[in-house]
């Protein structure tokens, strides 16, 4: 069963070859078997999921048109609110927090007849690139459990890679879907900012956050994206007018497609194996008929500072509500109001979260606002303009997702700057609000997956998925499974 795509599972359920309950049970059994090893799942709702599978089955049998993913189990990153079910952001601060409402994306999954079976591990409040910063311990990479799964949606990527779930939702603020997908050898889409409602996504950086799908193929991801995308009256920044509709595959050719390859992304800090795999993919796309042309990506030295200034500024404000008064962690030792604030926040947040809150408060403080925050906003405008110019020349941009493959757990824990540099290829996409798809494209010498990303102009998800689909038809990287546990 874990060999089948999500779309095939739903088709089999509709054809009465499988029942929704059988599928849910099989995945939950698998989570119970391998879950501890990867630490991808934080919560599994067996009873609830089975009850829900029965309901969905009845609706399918009653002839209700649900969606191409009806009956398929799905799991959510633990920063996506689920009413009545703990949503912890992998933080001590929200360790026991149970939302009273569900995220728009979660509601859409239910309406599409999908079955939410659990919540997934992550970096605390989605801050990190390795899924090591959460209070529930690191996610382990299914390809090598001594290595990180990437982050911050590490649980979402690792669970799919380990075949513990056919599809999951992650969130991407600076690469948090794409990079763990690359590290775990699975496929993911970071949608255009404003394509998926953020209502119920517990905010890290509001102007950058976007929920997106992770799966074993771009077809599965596209199907899930069409379920979760669409307008939502509760999120003013969700400006899309209707859900995406992904057409049928365009065959195995990319004739006429103009792909830009940023030459300078392949100099400097990139690992040779990553460079080799991504350039090989570029050649493959050229062989499929795409016109691949090199160019110089501008502003690369500014993207990381601009991203961290803006993201941390917004985070410092977004996370201020966790004050120990209303919900979440409250320090037992606090005796005065200021102690409730200071001790609850000092004890409830982990080091990386505190680092970003302090950085964000600093760049917004009077006397520093112009020098940092305002300048970062200006840089952001320049980055947007640069992408606008590039999309006059190219249909898509092909780039590595990260300069390295998955590194050993603990390696970057005490060197945040080294970790931040790993975001070099991903953060500009969020600053410009663009969509990108992350695809497996090979392995390094240690057998760890390498990923590429295709970046498109705003709301070009259908075209991106079309090109990615052609690539996945021509290659089998996305079908590989971690050794030993491959199912």
């Amino acid at each position: 069963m874990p060999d089948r795509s999500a779309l095939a599972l739903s088709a089999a359920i509709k054809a009465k070859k499988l029942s929704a309950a059988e599928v849910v049970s099989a995945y939950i059994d698998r989570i119970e078997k391998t879950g501890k090893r990867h630490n991808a799942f934080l919560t599994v709702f067996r009873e609830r999921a089975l009850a829900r599978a029965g309901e969905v089955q009845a609706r399918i049998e009653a002839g209700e048109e649900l969606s191409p993913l009806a009956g398929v189990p799905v799991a959510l990153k633990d920063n996506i609110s689920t009413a009545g079910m703990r949503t912890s952001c992998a933080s001590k601060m929200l360790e026991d927090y149970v939302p009273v409402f569900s995220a728009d994306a979660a509601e859409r999954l239910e309406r599409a007849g999908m079955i939410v079976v659990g919540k997934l591990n992550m970096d605390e409040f989605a801050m990190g690139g390795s899924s090591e910063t959460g209070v529930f311990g690191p996610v382990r990479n299914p390809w090598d459990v001594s290595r990180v799964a990437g982050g911050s949606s590490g649980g979402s990527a690792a669970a799919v890679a380990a075949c513990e779930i056919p599809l999951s939702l992650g969130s991407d603020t600076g690469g948090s879907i794409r990079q763990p997908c690359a590290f775990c050898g699975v496929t993911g889409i970071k949608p255009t900012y404003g394509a998926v409602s953020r209502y119920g996504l517990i905010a890290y950086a509001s102007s950058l956050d976007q929920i997106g799908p992770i799966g074993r193929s771009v077809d599965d991801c596209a199907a899930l994206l069409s379920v979760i995308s669409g307008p939502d009256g509760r999120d003013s920044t969700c400006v899309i007018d209707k859900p995406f509709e992904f057409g049928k595959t365009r065959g195995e050719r990319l004739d006429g497609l103009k792909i830009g390859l940023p030459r300078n992304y392949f100099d400097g800090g990139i690992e040779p194996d990553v460079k080799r795999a991504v350039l090989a993919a570029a050649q493959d796309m050229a062989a499929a008929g795409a016109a691949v042309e090199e160019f110089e990506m501008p502003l690369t030295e500014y993207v990381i500072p601009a991203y961290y200034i803006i993201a941390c500024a917004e985070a410092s404000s977004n996370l201020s509500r966790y004050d120990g008064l209303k919900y979440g962690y409250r320090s037992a030792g606090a005796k005065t109001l200021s102690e409730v604030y200071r001790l609850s926040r000092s004890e409830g947040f982990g080091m990386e979260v505190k680092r970003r809150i302090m950085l964000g408060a600093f760049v917004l403080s009077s006397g520093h606002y112009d020098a940092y925050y305002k300048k970062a906003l200006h840089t952001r405008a320049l980055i947007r303009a640069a992408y606008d110019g590039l999309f006059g020349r190219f249909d898509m941009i092909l780039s590595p997702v990260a300069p390295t493959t998955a590194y050993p757990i603990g390696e970057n824990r005490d060197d945040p700057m080294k970790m931040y540099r790993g975001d070099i290829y991903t953060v500009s996409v969020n600053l410009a609000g663009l969509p990108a798809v992350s695809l497996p494209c090979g392995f390094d010498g240690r057998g760890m997956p390498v990923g590429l990303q295709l970046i498109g102009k705003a709301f070009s998800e259908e075209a991106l998925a079309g090109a990615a689909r052609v690539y996945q038809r021509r290659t089998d990287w996305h079908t590989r499974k971690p050794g030993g546990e491959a199912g």
Partner: protein
Amino acid sequence: MTWETVIGLEVHAELSTKSKIFCGCSTEFGGEPNSRVCPVCAGLPGSLPKLNLAVVEYAVRLGLALNCGIAGRCEFDRKNYFYPDLPKAYQVSQLYAPICRGGSLDIETGGRVKAIGIREIHMEEDAGKLLHDADRTCMDFNRCGVPLLEIVTLPDFRSGAEVIAGLERLREILLYLGISDGKMQEGSLRVDVNLSLRRPGGPPGVRTEMKNLNSFKAVGRAIEYERRRQTEILDSGGAVWQETRRWDDDQGESSGLRSKEDAQDYRYFPEPDLLPIEIDDAWLARIRADLPELAHQKRERYRRDYALSPAEAAILTSHKSIPALFEAVAALSGEPVEAARLMTGEIMRLIHQTDTRPEDLALDAGKLSALVALVAEGKINRSAYKETVEAVFTRGVDPEAYIAEKGLAMLTDENAVAAAVNAAAAENPEAVRDYRAGKEKAFGFLMGRVMKQLGGAGNPEMVKKMLRKTLDK
């Protein structure tokens, strides 16, 4: 040497929109604590604001009424600070790009008109309330997210009297625009006073900001107190501290809350959860076209078109629901002066006497105008008129039917009047004698007797004429 008092205001007006600024919760005052709260106004994780466009429209209305420039594009900013009544730990407000800039408020003091500059008007959300009892403090978020307009004036006021006049004018504008109930006691109009002293024509002095002013009277007292306090400091060679002070109206004094050194850094930045607001020309034109006539404009028109006195015009506009009734009665009867007299006289008296709230008045303009026409045409006399007005006011009677039923129409039958005059003269020979001896007072007495005889329905002019004729015979 004298000091000149320099005052600027920051006024917060709670808007009377049905729902809150970023969610669908009711804005109604009061209610069980936390009964008008949802995930959005409680700031729960993952919730997002959704702008209520009525708030923008209300802000534009006020901006136009105060001759402000309306921004074609404006944005919200977050003002960050920790306090238990602020569930998100930031207030969504406007700092960098407020909706209205510039503008002026005309005030009248001592018959002189003066323009007070408006620096800006911006939109923001209100915070909640803390409820303290003996051993604990509870949070009530009902007020969280109630829309506010903050109106910031230039330091153009020179006295407490000017400030009160400005606040009264502003309150009147808010009420006539229908955007706020302007109740200071319920906190829907809140005023902070910035006051400094300077030598006339000299450089500005150090200012203090006064908070917790819950009535116009408190504003006046606090200004006088602060003016004296600063004068004493400066006269004795001291220096005024820049600080925020809290007015205690019971004690009649203020005390320092926090100094400039403790000023918080609010780390303002653009609110990323809301898109910039675009106000296009068509929308602006529509709001402008729908602006109601304001009280001071009405007063001007009443004086100009109806030749009413300033006092009458002021009474007619003292409550928002009076002018519409007055204007309808004036138009229907074609007797604006008589209609004004009715509204400012009898109707006002009855409102006070019956303790009716002017907004609850349910008077039929048609009935009142019929009555006005009758008295203007001399078909009823004043006392019959007064009685009928009261019957219309309290029971909603039909005036013509009532007059007929009660026989209140003026008697114009000369024979009946002559009979009454003769009877009165015959019954009061002493008074007749007094009158003939030159005692004019006796004439009034006899007039009263005749009128009584006629059941109050005599035409006073006719009675007077015939009585004189009879007595002077």
